[in-house]
């Protein structure tokens, strides 16, 4: 039961962070939105920082699980690229708070995560699945064998950048319209 409640608190916090910003949101705000006392909130998260870290792991796990499903599907690497991009863009459209949290809280406020989320500690499920995807693509000779970060930066930097622009409303239409073109570009850049 405690885990279910924690998940509800994280989802609530996620929405508030997206609406008001991480620093402008207090534990009291989250408690109020949950209809809980602040004292009770501390039974679940002893600080906003610890909530932030668990939230990061929670999101990373959601992304990781979804990419894992794609990894375990028997389709070509080219099709997998499309599926991953579709997944990311649909998530960015339907649940922008998730992507927002990654970009605006995690990547922009490293000091919150410096202690306990070093390296890939809190994003391991997501990064592991991306590595699995790349590794298999090279093993099947469908992707070019190159440095992991060169490929990772090209892949994630590109789509996260578009999600950011969409969040700023600079891109006026749904990211779902960009799935095909972006998939094509990424495949062309990474293919063997």
């Amino acid at each position: 039961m405690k885990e279910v409640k924690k998940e509800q608190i994280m989802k609530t916090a996620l929405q508030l962070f997206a609406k008001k910003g991480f620093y402008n949101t207090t534990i009291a705000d989250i408690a109020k939105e949950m209809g809980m006392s602040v004292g009770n909130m501390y039974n679940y998260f002893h600080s906003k920082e610890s909530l932030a870290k668990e939230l990061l792991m929670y999101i990373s796990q959601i992304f990781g699980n979804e990419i894992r499903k794609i990894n375990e599907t028997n389709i070509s690497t080219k099709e997998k690229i499309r599926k991953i991009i579709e997944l990311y863009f649909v998530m960015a459209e339907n649940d922008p708070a998730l992507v927002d949290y990654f970009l605006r809280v995690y990547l922009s406020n490293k000091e919150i995560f410096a202690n306990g989320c070093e390296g890939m500690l809190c994003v391991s499920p997501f990064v592991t699945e991306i590595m699995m995807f790349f590794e298999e693509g090279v093993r099947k000779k469908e992707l070019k064998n190159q440095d992991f970060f060169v490929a990772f930066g090209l892949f994630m930097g590109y789509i996260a950048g578009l999600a950011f622009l969409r969040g700023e409303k600079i891109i006026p239409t749904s990211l779902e319209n960009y799935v095909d073109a972006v998939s094509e570009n990424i495949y062309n850049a990474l293919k063997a």
Partner: protein
Amino acid sequence: MHSKLKVLWIDAVSCNGCSHSFLNYPYLEDLFEKIEFIYHPILESEEFKITDFDILIVEGALKDNFLRFDFDLKQLIKVLFNKAKKVIALGTCAVYGGMFGEGLMFDKEKEGIFHKYKNKIINISGCPIHYDWLIYVLEMLSQNKNIILDEENRPVEIYSFTSHSGCNRNEYFEWKIDAKWGEKEGCLFYESGCQGPFTHSNCNRNLWNEINSKPRAGMPCFGCTEKTFPKVGLFETETFMGVPANVPLGATKRGYLTLAGIAKSLTNERLEKKLFRYKNEKNNFKN
């Protein structure tokens, strides 16, 4: 079996490296109280003839149209197989084909021409073999004890381990700290091609000549006990987009990547820097 085990040791297509490794055994005299070689290619023995014996040792690989003692090699070994109580395929060449040809029970990944005699065969792979591996098998046979074998007929006492087990660089493997060839510190798995984590042997539990092993000395394990030996690019770690193509035996790729990612995210300051510093130290002792 006889009070003294009669062993016929023949060399097929071989470099005699396994014989030489065997001759480093420091207690040969004790061994010769329990066994006798009725023929050995290097040790003094009577001239080769097809006679009665207990154990056949084949050192080296098989090849078509290869003569040994004026017999066709494969025909000769077939005759000897029928006379032998047990056959020891000695060295990776005899087990899998290795450097020179085909093995007895295996021809690399495929079944070899003597696979049908597998109930007689004990495989001791290695390039070369460690003398203790052969001694263990001979001792067990001389005492008429059962040797437990794995699915490739290798004694589990030796081959259930990986050569990673007991490696004194394991601390560096845990923390994902790389080493260059010959360095005292660091793990040779990440860049230098060490195959220890997926090579069956006890090289780091039962040291060579009682003192050392390749990885301990700074040289990567090159997987000489495996059917894939010799690989191309022995001293480079094959990677796919930075991910090792081979992960430790028994681990899933996903499990390995998760663990490696976590280890890489953290640091062990003591191991990040050199443990040994020889230059510019004021207290260095000069000879």
